[in-house]
């Protein structure tokens, strides 16, 4: 059996498994009690892989699909500032609602 012949098949199977186990992170970002609208962006980093920033929609909601599961870092960009927090990505979707605040001109974020 020539392993080189099966390499593409194996690659396709592995990529299929990776997609099937990918996690979705979604939620809403608010500043105090009001939505941030489409003014914020969310970037995720899982291990060495960085996912490009995704803008929130007009209701302040976002959705990021990650290929990895486990610990990830989410960075929220808002009004020319950015702040990060640790999140977890699972095989299934996870809701991560965020509350951002400007204190002494510095952006902070916490999970709600």
């Amino acid at each position, binding site marked *: 059996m020539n392993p080189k012949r099966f390499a593409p098949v194996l690659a396709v199977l592995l990529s299929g498994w990776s997609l099937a186990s990918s996690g979705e992170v979604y939620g809403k970002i608010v500043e105090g009690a009001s939505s941030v609208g489409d003014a914020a962006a969310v970037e995720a980093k899982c291990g060495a892989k960085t996912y490009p920033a995704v803008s929130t929609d007009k209701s302040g909601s976002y959705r990021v699909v990650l290929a990895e*599961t*486990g*610990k990830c870092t989410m960075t929220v960009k808002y009004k020319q500032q950015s702040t990060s927090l*640790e*999140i*977890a990505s*699972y*095989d*299934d979707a*996870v*809701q*991560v*609602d965020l509350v951002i605040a400007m204190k002494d001109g510095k952006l902070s974020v*916490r*999970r*709600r």
Partner: protein
Amino acid sequence: MADTLGKPKDRWDKLMIVLHPMGGLLTAVAVTSVGIMGSQVLNERQALDTNARLYSELMSRREESESSLRKDMFVSIIQTFLQPGAGDLDTKVLNLELLAYNFHESLNLKPLFLDIARRLDRPEAKDRQAFRARLNRVAREITAKQLFALEGHGKSFRRTVDLEEVRRQGRSGVALEGESVAVGGKQCEVNLYVLDSDPEAQQLRVRLEVKAPENAQDPADTRAEFYLGWYDFPMIDNTRLANGLRCAVTLSNFSSAMADLTTVCFPGEYASLKDRPYYDEVIQKLQEATQK
């Protein structure tokens, strides 16, 4: 023309002669109109009352027939769980799905879910992965439905717990970031501690601590410790607080390294149908309504 005194009748006298019999006629017309209108109003009100009575009768009959149908359905399904050896695992899982989708707001189905889960752990159980996946999927769907309904009337927050950290900390457990929750003018501080984890059973031992704000009239704290898994449904399995609110913790996600918990606090009237309010709570609500 002249009257008895010989004074000639002017235009007003003539008008009075014409209008004098008209007065009686107008009075009769007015009395008749009032009578007809009054009768119409009475008829309309009677029709409305009849419609309302008919509607309530129809509703109560529908409710009765639905209750009877649900009772028959419940009795026939529950028999398969109570009779020893009745039905194979496939039938039991299907029956549990039926029970869960139809009675999740009125029954605590956790014992049945756990019973099936125990049967699946037996060595002779076939297709255990597929059955377990079905059980967990039903449980997650029911939890999500109930959470969605409760979040509309209360407040919720989500936290992630690092299970490796829980194992490292041992008996002291891991404290999750607290949240200040305000529902219907009632405020409380909710804290969660994860004391232990069982990755195989996908369960956590959790302590829920709810503290009243410092300036509250009744600063009673609530503390509850429980095992949390996929089969804990928030409407049914919740903690009653001193201020009448309920708080429930649910498992949203679980992996070998992390778990996500969702906590929802909501007014007691949105708890399950089996959860009746205490008498003092009813009296307190009546008093509040009177004060308003």
